[in-house]
């Protein structure tokens, strides 16, 4: 088992290297960081621009392979280079990962837990009114793009707040910098409410459909009947035997989603003005920020491969049938 995991790990490292290199090449050849300096008033002399860009390893006059070599050398030692205006990509990334983590950890876990619960409930109540309601709402939510949903939520909250005359729920930003201590913590939580709802609604809808199907497959299996024939209550049999078995496929989806979540919330972050990884990708593309784009992509590749690794481990842990001796 250990040897198998090590081999998987080695393959993943190679895949990350390939993905990040391709992304860097694409960004370096198509983006033009020089534009940010050229249009300035008063005009900056070309020699100065060249010197600045050289310092940041962004000069398009240097051959792309040479820039790549410099970049790659830095990445190997843990340095992702400079942003377009000379900031450290590393420190920016560190900050933004924490922002995304705070926002998305809750949203993803909540989405999974509620989605699975709703899906299982829906399967048990198949064709009843509650099942149909859950089904229709899931499809409606899945049909609405997340930016529409998030905007609607923000507008709705704005109106509620105005109607009430005070800010019940915050609808923009991460926190209020003027508060401190306990108030600050509560304020941060308040700021989390809306983006978390907009993030998790989609996952709830998605997981509830998956889990409903998985659960339906399992519900009519003999082992659920056996569990009840032993004398377990229906509810116990459903949770302990049916749901536990039906959870295996959803758990693999979840492991995957967990890996992609850091970069997956671009719209939500932009709309609620959270400065996370997703928003960064959009911003850095706008700013022709080659090194930042490469860093985000590198990070995304790592996340996805870690996630696939995790989902393998998780399946092995949950399902004795696939466990490798």
């Amino acid at each position, binding site marked *: 088992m250990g040897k198998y995991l090590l*081999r998987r790990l080695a393959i993943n490292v190679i895949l990350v290297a390939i993905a990040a290199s391709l992304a860097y090449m694409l960004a370096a050849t198509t983006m033009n960081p020089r534009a940010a300096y050229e249009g300035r008033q008063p005009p900056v002399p070309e020699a100065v621009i060249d010197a600045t860009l050289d310092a940041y390893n962004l000069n398009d006059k240097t051959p792309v392979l040479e820039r790549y070599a410099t970049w790659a050398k830095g990445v190997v030692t843990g340095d992702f280079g400079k942003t377009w205006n000379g900031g450290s990509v590393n420190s920016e990334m560190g900050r933004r990962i924490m922002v995304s983590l705070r926002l998305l950890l809750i949203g993803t876990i909540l989405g999974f837990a509620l989605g699975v619960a709703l899906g299982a409930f829906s399967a048990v109540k198949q064709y009843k009114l509650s099942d149909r309601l859950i089904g229709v709402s899931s499809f409606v939510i899945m049909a609405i793009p997340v930016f529409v949903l998030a905007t609607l939520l923000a507008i709705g909250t704005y109106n509620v707040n105005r109607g009430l005359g005070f800010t019940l729920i915050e609808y923009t930003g991460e926190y209020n910098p003027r508060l401190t201590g306990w108030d600050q913590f509560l304020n941060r939580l308040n700021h989390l409410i809306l983006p978390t709802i907009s993030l998790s609604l989609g996952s709830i809808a998605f997981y509830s459909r998956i889990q409903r199907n998985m659960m339906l497959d399992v519900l009519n299996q*003999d082992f659920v009947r*056996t569990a*009840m*024939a*032993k*004398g*377990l209550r229906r509810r116990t049999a459903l949770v302990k035997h049916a749901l536990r078995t039906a959870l*295996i496929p959803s758990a693999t989806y979840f492991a995957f989603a967990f890996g992609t979540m850091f970069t997956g919330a671009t719209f939500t972050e932009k709309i609620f003005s959270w400065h996370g990884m997703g928003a960064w990708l959009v911003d850095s593309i706008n700013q022709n920020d080659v090194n930042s784009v490469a860093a985000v992509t590198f990070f995304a590749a790592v996340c996805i491969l870690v996630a696939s690794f995790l989902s393998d481990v998780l399946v092995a842990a949950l399902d004795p049938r696939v466990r490798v001796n």
Partner: protein
Amino acid sequence: MSILEVKDLTVTFPGGIEAVRGVSYEVERGEVLGIVGESGSGKSVTSLAVMGLLPKNAAVSGSVKLHGQELLGLREEELVKVRGKAISMIFQDPLSAFTPVYTIGDQIAEAVRVHQKVGKDKAIKRAVELLDLVGIPNPDLRAKAFPHEFSGGMRQRAMIAMAIANDPDLLICDEPTTALDVTIQAQVLEVLKTAQQETGAGIVMITHDLGVIAGMADRVLVMYAGRPVEQAPVDDIYYRPRMPYTMGLLASVPRIDGEEGALVPIEGNPPSPAALPPGCPFAPRCPMKVDMCDEEEPALVPFGGGRHVACIRAHEIEHKGLTGADVFPVPVIPPSEVVNVPRAERATVLELDGMKRHYPLMKGAIMKRRVGTVYAVDGISFDIAEGETLALVGESGCGKTTTLQQIMQLEPPQDGRVVVLGKDSATLDKAARKALRRDLQIVFQDPMAALDPRMPIGDIIAEPLRAHGKKDVAAKVAELLQLVGLAPEHAERYPQQFSGGQRQRIGIARALALEPKLLVLDEPVSALDVSIQAGVINLLEELKNRLGLSYLFVAHDLAVVRHLADRVAVMYLGRIAEIGTVANVYDRPAHPYTQALLSAIPLPDPEMERTRKRILLEGDLPSPANPPSGCRFRTRCPKFARLNEAERQRCVDEEPSVVQQANAVDHGAACHYAEEIEVITASDNQEEE
């Protein structure tokens, strides 16, 4: 006093589908009640209703009393105290009956802990004891194994262990051995008897297998279309049936000890529970039907001697002493002309010579590496003469299907030769292979899965004709449909509009479309009910004689084989154990495996079942990836156990090959110490006069 009293139980599913229509029975302590019926007769639904395990949309009425306590309408809190404690249930398919993600030991311990206030360690200890009781070797180790690590027979033993964990008063067994091989079935039935002795429980045994019931039951209830049609002590049901359905059912069972010749089929199909005929539901299929039968459904009335019959002509049957063979028309099958020519002078249609098929055993997800070899078929030889049926029998995993696949592929085998109609498969090019396929066709086991549900059956049958560029397809399809007993008008219909037996006939028509010389039949009747099965067996027999076909017939049901085959080859772990004419192999089996196999088959004859001595085999089939050295059967061989040290050594060192028996023509056995013995006593009259 009876443990369980069921009165006027009815179960109706949404849409007015009356699955069970008034079932009454009682079970006493230590008694075994057999419930027999074909699929759709309502036998399983009845027992699920007793357990309260039917889906909520099923409307259940009547009365189910356990020790005088009414169970129907009981709230869940009360019901869970009864389930698994006073009544336990054993289900048909032991693979799906265990939750795949928990260990066997944990699942049995859970059953203990639901009803007894004991700690976790104690419950696990009890689980190990129970596993030991049902004969699982190394129970403390095996308790930690997951369901998929158990073989089918072991799982069913574990299921029994779980069912008796709380010392139940009543055990309901729903087709407990249907999914198992015969030798394993014999073991499990033995365990069930032990379990009954241990707990003194009453047993309700639900099955379609009249042989299993004959050996187990004290009383039998026969169900048809959701109602009991006859109920009597076991001997009366088998020797003096008084309801035409029971009579027909008994007459249609192929018997391993019976004489050859046509079986007696019951015409037609069981009625759909959504559209029952007026009057007696069996009337449309009954040869004794009179006008009065259509007027009113006869009630199950006492008949004397603890018997109950639901037939208005029961007294007449009793008076005249009629049997199934008297009542049901015995079809006449034209004799084969080929048989007149001695076998040696007939052409050989199929010849296998030392054929091998090994599969590599791979491990690893990405980097695959070979860790061993599965010896699926390890050198088998046989031949089939024109107009002859050779049956290949053996338990699952013995290599029957692999042999078939190798023959059907028409590719060169890994080792040995496959010669079809005089052509060696190693020498065929693409065109020759296609031409040869015309003469070699197959009928599959599962008639539901073998027909494309979106194709009218006319197109299904026409497909091979078109593929080989035949003309006048429509006329040929009509002719084929008539040949297998269907109407030409049916060509426009889709497979789902036909019953199982009819679908298998369609499969046969498709196989016959190209007028093949050799037909490969892969378990063609094992998915069918007995009354339907008889009709298909007769059809196959008739087609063979009329069209001069040869069959390679693969089956696990030795009774069906006795009826259909001329010669039989018994396979064990990829090798042939015994081969010869049916009469030789069945009446004088020489290989210990054949002897055990034959003795494991339950006979639909209570008297013989009671007096019969079984040769029980120990354990399960070894893995074909790691067969024992020398004789492959020696690890389970009852004969090996009786040999002395020197004699045993030969079995360990030297693999026996098939040797012709000295005193017989066409009878070979692969055993160093082959000795012919009689395992089944032939019975001439199936029913008492």
